[in-house]
């Protein structure tokens, strides 16, 4: 009885101004419905949203709590839809007028991300420019990176001791930049192993990375004229389970006793487990990753660490490939631009806080 009296009192004013429109700057498949809240909003149980594709037969497609005036509906592109919003108070319902028909469609350009397009074009353009520069034979200087100087020493040490080299590329996928950079370094390490006839152990966590690495190592041995020295069993897949992989590599470190461990690539929580075990065996350890959260462990437990972008630069420095050198040069100029934006933007920001400009009025 009380409900009926309250419903009558508020007359369950329906939502008004129901407006349906294609969500802008999206990939299609969605219509947004907005409405003006019912005057009895604070007393309502909820709002219900109804949809029709012919303007007569409506079906309920969603509910929203009181105080909410927006709903995104999944739709089929190119098809017209009508919407009604219903104010619900207990068992009583009050329907709004139907919306104008709306149709969803995909947009080619997300205008909210124009700044990203500008950034990508700017940095991409710089990189392409320097790649062309390098391809035309212009020398591009990349400074020495400490960890790289140690690669020769590390391979030499393993050769003298008659022990293998362990190269662990981490648990990344082939699309991870750190994994790609790691494979580039693996190629150079494999060449040195081929030259010195040093055993290489290369366990993998991802089957695709394993496939690529196997080809790279095989090619490296061929490049240095030692295709016969390539051992197909030296590059192998272990498992794609993170900690099972860590357990297996730990076992390899203790049983094979490599003289040098390369932990270069994409790592997560297993980084400390691997680095600590390697350190306990007395091996020289060269690590590198772009995973900021794992770098502290490598810095602590390894002899040399390639920090973040040093890893990318290392692969360019070693291979001297125009593509990689150009990318590093382009990124360097990108950093200069970022620095300039930060300084200029900060000066403008400070001027708004400390109105120095007023002095010139």
């Amino acid at each position, binding site marked *: 009885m009380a409900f009926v009296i309250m419903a009558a009192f508020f007359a369950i004013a329906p939502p008004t101004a129901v407006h349906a429109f294609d969500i802008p700057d999206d990939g299609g498949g969605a219509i947004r419905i907005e409405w003006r809240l019912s005057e009895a909003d604070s007393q309502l149980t909820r709002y219900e949203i109804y949809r029709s594709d012919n303007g007569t037969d409506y079906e309920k497609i969603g509910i929203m709590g009181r105080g909410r005036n927006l709903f995104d509906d999944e739709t089929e592109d190119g098809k017209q839809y009508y919407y009604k919003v219903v104010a619900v108070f207990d068992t009583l319902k009050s329907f709004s007028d139907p919306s104008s028909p709306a149709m969803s469609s995909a947009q080619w350009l997300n205008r909210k991300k124009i700044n990203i397009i500008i950034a990508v074009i700017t940095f991409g353009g710089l990189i392409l420019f320097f790649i062309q520069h390098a391809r035309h034979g212009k020398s591009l200087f990349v400074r020495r990176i400490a960890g790289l100087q140690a690669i020769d020493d590390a391979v030499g040490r393993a050769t003298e001791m008659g022990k293998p080299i362990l190269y662990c590329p981490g648990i990344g996928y082939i699309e991870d930049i750190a994994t790609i950079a790691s494979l580039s370094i693996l190629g150079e390490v494999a060449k040195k192993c081929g030259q010195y006839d040093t055993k290489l152990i290369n366990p993998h966590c991802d089957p695709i990375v394993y496939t690529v690495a196997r080809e790279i190592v095989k090619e490296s041995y061929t490049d240095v004229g030692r295709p016969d020295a390539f051992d197909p069993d030296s590059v192998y897949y272990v*498992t794609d389970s993170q900690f099972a992989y860590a357990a297996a590599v730990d076992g390899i470190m203790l049983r094979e006793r490599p003289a040098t461990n390369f932990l270069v690539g994409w790592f997560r929580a297993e980084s400390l487990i691997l680095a600590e075990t390697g350190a306990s065996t007395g091996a020289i350890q060269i690590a590198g990753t772009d995973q900021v959260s794992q770098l502290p462990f490598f810095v602590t437990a390894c002899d040399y660490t390639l920090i*973040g972008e040093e890893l990318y630069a290392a692969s360019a420095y070693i291979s001297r490939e125009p593509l990689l050198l150009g990318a590093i040069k382009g990124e360097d100029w990108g950093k200069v631009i970022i620095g300039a934006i930060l300084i200029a933007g900060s000066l403008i920001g400070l001027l708004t806080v400390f109105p120095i400009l007023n002095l010139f009025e």
Partner: protein
Amino acid sequence: MNISSDPWVWVSALFTIAIFSFLWRDNPFYKIAEHIFVGVANGWAVTFYWHNVLVPTLFDPLFRQGQLLFTIPFVIGMLYLTRFMPRVSWLVRIPIGISMGYYVGASIPAVSQALIIKQIQGTLLSPHNFQAWHAGSMGIVWSIILLIGVLCTLSYFYFSKEHKGILGTTSRIGIVFVMIGFGAAFGYTVMARISLLIGRIQYLLGPWLGIVD
């Protein structure tokens, strides 16, 4: 003391101890645990990918529902197997190239947004960023320190010149900032790892041995 009678709790506890025994030295118990771990992980992965990926997203649409468009990913995926056929093994480069190209391309907008645009926005000296520190008038000081840290760190990762002169000085300051960041991350993560260790010990003392609740 109320030792568990559940055999699976015993299996779990004994494997935990076997893995922990690695802290002493390599031993047969660790080897057994390691090999079972790797084997079970691989077996699980095969069944997982079969039931959760291959069947619902490829085989069902293609072979049961007859959606011929799925022939394209099916053929591209099958090219991975050409690695076992030396004469056509080069074909494996096609799916690798496609997946690398797709993922790298798709990640560019997200990476640009998260690692460049947002970082620049957060580093600029602006009233909004001063307030974000929730440190009153000290907010501006922290923002200036952050800006100096970012600029110096950027200079450390500048590879086109030797780190000498001004660049040498700024890059040294930059690496100090980097190491301070690493120190904080190290402490934070060690705490998280200790909590994981506590979790395992609680499991041994609780569900297994019944010493603690």
